[in-house]
């Protein structure tokens, strides 16, 4: 095969792969939109935000307010981020700049293993360890906090591993330059390494949060599943994902369409979050 030809084949394959990825996303959004169409076009989607409660099955007074559930999704994600981002970043800094070789290798293994654990196992562990622990101090135990902790553990490896690769990708000559200016170790890390790697770190956090907002199985097991606006982290909550997972099996007609619409809102929320990040990333410096 001539050089030119093989170049063209490669470029075709790469383009096709990129196109497929885009098409998949579009396809999913399209599918959700079609299924949610009855709700959207009847104008009833406003019920999402005007209805107070979520009781789609009620004969007498069906209500479709998902505000508390959207709020729960956001709060759980936020809590997970507050717990996982600092630990993940600090862990990666330790791994790259302080840990001896042998320990660093084990830390990588451990994080990769953690990343590979199925979410149902996390849920199971949360239910049998975290929930009883919280219950001892602040019943019922199934709560926003439990969900946040379990999710934090799930996204920790993503954040820590991406931060690690961003930090190790920094050219050694840059760090040598920082050292040669008489910067202390902490100054080298905080003022040079972190700012240099910040795009990679931000990407890792975004990936982690993207996973957190969509995570279902582990959360459903520990969050308590009561659709309410929580007053503290110890209150049970019910995120959008749980609702879809729990109700899709038996939902019919209108109810089902509402669930699809809720899914669409979730996808759009994630997209919005990523978009804001991209815009912010582009406008730095």
């Amino acid at each position, binding site marked *: 095969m001539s050089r030119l030809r093989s170049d063209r084949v490669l470029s075709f394959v790469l383009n096709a792969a990129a196109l497929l990825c885009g098409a998949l996303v579009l396809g999913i959004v399209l599918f959700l939109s079609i299924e949610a169409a009855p709700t959207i076009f009847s104008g009833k989607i406003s019920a999402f935000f005007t209805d107070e409660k979520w009781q789609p099955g009620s004969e007498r007074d069906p209500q479709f307010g998902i505000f508390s559930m959207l709020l729960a999704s956001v709060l759980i994600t936020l809590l997970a981020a507050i717990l996982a981002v600092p630990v993940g970043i600090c862990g990666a800094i330790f791994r790259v700049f302080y840990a001896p070789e042998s320990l660093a290798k084990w830390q990588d293994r451990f994080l990769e293993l953690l990343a590979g654990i199925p979410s149902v196992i996390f849920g199971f562990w949360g239910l049998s360890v975290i929930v009883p622990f919280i219950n001892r101090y602040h019943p019922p135990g199934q709560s926003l906090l439990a969900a946040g902790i379990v999710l934090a553990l799930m996204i920790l490896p993503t954040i820590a591993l991406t931060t690690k690769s961003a930090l190790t990708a920094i*050219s050694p000559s840059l760090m040598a*330059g920082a*050292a040669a200016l*008489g*910067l202390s170790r902490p*100054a080298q890390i905080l003022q040079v390494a972190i700012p240099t790697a910040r795009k990679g770190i931000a990407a890792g956090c975004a990936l982690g949060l993207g996973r957190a907002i969509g995570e279902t199985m582990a959360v459903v097991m520990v969050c308590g599943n009561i659709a309410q606006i929580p007053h503290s982290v110890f209150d049970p909550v019910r995120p959008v994902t749980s609702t879809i997972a729990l109700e899709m099996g038996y939902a019919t007609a209108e109810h089902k369409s509402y669930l699809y619409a809720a899914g669409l809102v979730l996808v759009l929320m994630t997209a919005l979050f990523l978009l804001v990040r991209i815009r912010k990333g582009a406008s730095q410096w």
Partner: protein
Amino acid sequence: MAEESALIEVKNLSINYDDFAALRDVHLTIQKGNITALVGPSGCGKSSFLQSLNRLTDLIPGCQTTGEMILGGKNILSPGCDVLSLRRKVGMVFQKPNPFPQSIRRNFEIPLREHGFSKLETTDRMEDSLKRVGLWNEVSNRLSRSAANLSGGQQQRLCIARALALDPEVILFDEPCSALDPHASGVVEDLISSLRGSVTVVIVTHNLAQARRIADHLAVFWVRGGSGTIVETGATDALFTSATDPDAKSYLTGIRG
């Protein structure tokens, strides 16, 4: 040539990477305010020597230095040496320009603030040293833009300015021009030459013509018995015309190397 007075005395220096002796039994006197060029083929320990002068060798796992390097009455290599203030006194410029990929201003603020200068002093010193490297007119209106957008030659001059801002006694240059185009290389060379008298310069270069143009003193490195060492030192002109070591002679006259 400036008046001779020794600033650094290197005695019996050896550098090991684990079991490998990269440099053995090196003796050298570096004169204050002069430009000393280190020349010799690749792999004979010039960079290792340079990095031990500001203890950058500490960063390399398995690297060990023995012997003495006396600067201002103190041994640079002793464990008690305050490495951070040593590096403030002995700056370094690398082969590949390595400004922090942050704003030009931050490139000065980070080291200067770390060493305790006030905001005002930092601004003054930044302006002074940018002027000193001839970069002020080119960048004064874009100090908050990223240093990564500068050309290679500008980046290297920024790195020199950044080192100068700390008012060092010595600046070490490790092949500072070899990653630059000929024009930028000439500008940087002139700049280094202009430091004579105010800063002591130790420069590694593979460009013998450059060494001849700018250096007061020369130290020729060579591999002997598997390890690098200095085979001859002396005033540049004298060495180029009448080196006594056969390897140094053939290297300097361009027969070998």
